[in-house]
């Protein structure tokens, strides 16, 4: 479904992705784990088109995506819940969700919103409150729900567990697992390698702008190098 080949990207003169290759198959949950600063966020920013690509190619559902402007990528089926949630703090929860469906103007928006509320009942309770007043975990749920309102074929999740209490982290990973049942393909970026690998089908390890390892989630969890470097075992 999503193929990334030799992807390069830079901030000013400093290259931070030095040729990343990865593949996400339809219906899979694939995770990219790696330490802080490895380039995971930059990779997702490139996939969503909000970060210039200086080399390589992104192919999504058979179409070249590299030159598609960011605002057209949701329509192509690629939505992202970005690092740090990036919700619209001055707008209500409901308005945030409606903006997630910005490119759609049909009656399915209401149904999708009902689905989002069924998935995250707390958001229904707070639907008229300003999103900026939500707790961290609620904001994360809102960010995921907003991305789902874009009806993605593939959902990009950047560090959804970051900064959350352990119980919420578990809840967020449950949500990721549940997406599989909804036929949404997921590319999950995480520093929390153990949590991510336990819900993923496959994974990649990223180090300083390169993919250094890849395999099934079980293989990676069992790999001594991964255990030492990322699982602290």
């Amino acid at each position: 479904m999503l193929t990334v080949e030799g992807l390069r990207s830079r901030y000013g003169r400093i290259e931070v992705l030095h040729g990343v290759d990865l593949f996400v198959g339809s219906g899979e949950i694939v995770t990219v784990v790696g330490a802080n600063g490895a380039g995971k966020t930059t990779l997702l920013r490139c996939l969503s088109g909000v970060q210039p690509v200086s080399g390589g190619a992104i192919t999504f559902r058979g179409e070249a995506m590299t030159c598609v402007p960011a605002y057209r990528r949701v329509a192509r089926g690629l939505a992202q819940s970005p690092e740090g949630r990036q919700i619209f703090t001055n707008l209500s929860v409901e308005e945030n969700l409606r903006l997630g469906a910005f490119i759609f103007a049909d009656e399915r928006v209401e149904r999708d919103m009902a689905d989002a509320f069924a998935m995250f009942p707390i958001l229904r309770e707070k639907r008229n409150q300003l999103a900026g007043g939500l707790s961290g975990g609620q904001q994360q749920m809102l960010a995921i729900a907003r991305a789902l309102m874009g009806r993605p074929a593939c959902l990009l999740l950047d560090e959804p567990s970051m900064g959350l209490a352990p119980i919420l982290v578990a809840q967020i990973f449950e949500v990721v697992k549940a997406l599989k049942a909804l036929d949404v393909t997921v590319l999950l970026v995480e520093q929390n390698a153990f949590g991510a690998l336990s819900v993923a089908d496959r994974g990649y390890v990223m180090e300083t702008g390169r993919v250094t390892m890849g395999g099934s989630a079980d293989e990676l969890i069992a790999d001594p190098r991964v255990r030492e470097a990322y699982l602290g075992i």
Partner: protein
Amino acid sequence: MSDLLQFLASGVTVGAVYALVALGFTIIYNASDVVNFAQGEFVMLGGMISVAGVAAGLPLPLAALIAIAVTSAIGVALNTFAIEPARGAPVVSLIIITIGASIFIRGVTQIVLGKGTHRLPSFSGDEPLHVFGATVLPQSLWVTAGAVAIFVALWLFFTRTLTGRAVLATSNNRLAAQLVGINTRFVMTLSFALSAAIGALAGVLITPILPTSFEVGISLALKGFAAAMLGGMGSPKGALTGGLLLGLMEALTAGYISSHYKDAVAFFVILAVLFAFPRGLYGSNPTERV
């Protein structure tokens, strides 16, 4: 008592213009975090181009429409050729770019339209109206009504239209706006066009009362900026309140103290706001914007 009413009436008229200039600052600031000091030039262009159109024999409404359209195009050009290429530069550099652009616009206007000072004819005569003992020029009513109409139209645009919501979303969080499929570059272009058009319309409305020349933009920018700061940069409601308050303060200063001090009011307001309450009356928490 009738003195006071008189001062209030003239304060509201001038304040309405400051409110429109402040609104221009607000729209561009929200879309791009840029404080656009060329905002005053938009007002000047609105007046000067209309004057040129009328002098060339066009009817005033047509001249005004052309002035607004040309000024919008200049606003879009400012974004496309000066602001957009510098995307990612520190905000201070962007502000300096707008100051440069305003000097450039002034220079070109002086060359093309001359150094003279001009007035437009009033829209519906100069016969003053008497309201509760104050004399009010019909043009003052045009200015006030025009400002009210623009604020209402803009409010409807932001709350009722999809494009308006895209602008609001972009000003709240540009990255998130891009990620939900909003064309934020178009939003920027639109914001510059809108700000320039509002500035030009303010220029058309006020030029029958305050004569215009290529130089009037500087002080209008300063006063609009003061009004926007007072109301809270980024808040349309603040722009309206700040503009009216500044207009009233100026009129009262001119009436009860001396008209020499009138122009100092704006400086005083800027300093007072910066020192005492940098967010202004309705400004959002600066850390929330980051």
